[in-house]
């Protein structure tokens, strides 16, 4: 455990001190200021708009952290051979994968928590400026939505870790992760369209099979998008939270095991 924990900790430290993170933070502050200004332009449902924009900002900035910091934390090890320093210690290849994933997950949790607290300021201010007795906005659903964003980002990072276990440059990992993000965010909608059976639209069985294959193989990232529920204060069934959490844990476990198995065979000349 010491190997995983020590590697996770230095990975987290390396990530939190990254200059790119400060750049992302400045962008987020700007976006929150824009959110506060934009909501003033709306006549009603200001809180809904503020919550929606704030959650979108957290999700987007989290994605930037995964793509520009998370990937580098792993691929740079192989690019610049810092991996020699790690796996020449009593750390197995499997522990290396788990340690890196732990470090990136810690970074994402801390960043999302920080951004979540920061994002509640424009939401709170909009609540103050537009007192609506019929408002259905609920803080606990808003924070569950933030937790789900963190879960989505950690899941995406586990895929990044998997890709980095066999790619030799960070660029390839970046391209594959972006592709996975796009597919994972849209596959549910595409599958929904396929099942809707729109009149006059013929879909060949081969295309339908490919869509279904993609849907089941790639992570369903839209399951972690609770912006609508948070903005409208819609109730979240506990069954949904539980099943999505199980899906999340299961997918990460598969990615970590697959990454570890590939890493075990890999050489670092």
């Amino acid at each position, binding site marked *: 455990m010491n190997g995983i924990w020590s*590697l996770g900790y230095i990975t987290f430290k*390396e990530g939190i001190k990254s200059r790119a993170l400060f750049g992302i933070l400045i962008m987020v502050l700007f976006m929150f200021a824009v959110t506060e200004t934009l909501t003033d332009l709306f006549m009603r449902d200001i809180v809904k708009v503020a919550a929606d924009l704030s959650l979108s900002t957290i999700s987007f900035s989290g994605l930037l952290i995964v793509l520009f910091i998370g990937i580098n934390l792993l691929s740079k090890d192989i690019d610049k051979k810092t991996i020699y320093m790690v796996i020449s210690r009593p750390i197995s290849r499997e522990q290396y994968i788990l340690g890196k994933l732990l470090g990136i997950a810690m970074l994402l949790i801390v960043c999302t928590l920080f951004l979540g607290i920061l994002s509640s300021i424009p939401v709170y201010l909009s609540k103050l400026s537009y007192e609506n007795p019929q408002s259905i906005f609920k803080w606990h659903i808003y924070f569950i939505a933030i937790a789900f964003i963190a879960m989505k980002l950690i899941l995406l990072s586990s895929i990044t870790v998997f890709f980095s276990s066999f790619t030799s440059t960070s660029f390839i990992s970046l391209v594959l992760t972006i592709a996975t993000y796009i597919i994972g965010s849209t596959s549910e909608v595409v599958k929904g369209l396929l099942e809707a059976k729109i009149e006059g639209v013929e879909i060949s069985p081969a295309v339908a099979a490919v869509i279904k294959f993609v849907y089941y193989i790639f992570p369903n990232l839209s399951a972690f998008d609770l912006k609508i529920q948070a903005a409208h204060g819609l109730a979240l069934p506990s069954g949904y939270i539980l099943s999505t959490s199980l899906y999340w844990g299961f997918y990460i476990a598969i990615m970590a095991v697959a990454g570890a198995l590939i890493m075990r065979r890999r050489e670092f000349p």
Partner: protein
Amino acid sequence: MSAIETKSLTKVFKKDFSKKKIIALKSLSLKIEEGEVFGFLGPNGAGKSTTIKILLNLIRPTSGTVTIMGKNPSDKNVRKLVGYLPENPYFYDHLSAKELLWFGGKSCNMAAPAIRERTLQLLEELELIDAMKRPLRSYSKGMVQRAGLALALIHDPQILILDEPMSGLDPMGRIKVFNLILKLKEEGKTIFFSSHILHDIERLCDRAAILINGDLIRLIDVKNDLHQGETLESIFMDEVKRSGGLRE
């Protein structure tokens, strides 16, 4: 039991997108005893770093076996016995030397007070104490090399594997590293190191091996095999000439 033993160690690299093979090591058999300082000589591309990487399980041999204190290096616990300094070490940019050594100690299951004590002792000895909280990216080449040595030594390993420890150092840096290796030798550590600086190997090592194009050309007992007026450098040059030079 030997500290390090290789038997018929062979490594063949395949070039990407072609069937061309490069034989980096040809049936290398070596025995390095406990407490011995062993120098590994050879021109660039001779197979020195390949051997070291196999010893640390960074790469695997195509054939042959390797043991460290009688155990296979693929067992991660074996690496608790080993301290490794890579050639041109590169560490995480934003970490400080103190954090780097915390990682080194923690990964070897050292207790926090022991890590703190050993960190201060090593950084003092390697003259990095004033810079221990600075990020490693602000270090000079010599300082990075010394930080790498501190990482290799944090858990007080029995065996040290140093790949070109003097490479790129200025004269002062070389003297510091030289003195440190000398001190470790006096402490009875087993030291396996590769270097191009033959004079240092001659002064530090009990035995040395000359490796050319993956072949072990000669094993030299530094104290007994060097005759009047003969130096390691002259032997090395003769062996390189005799072997027909280097492959392309």
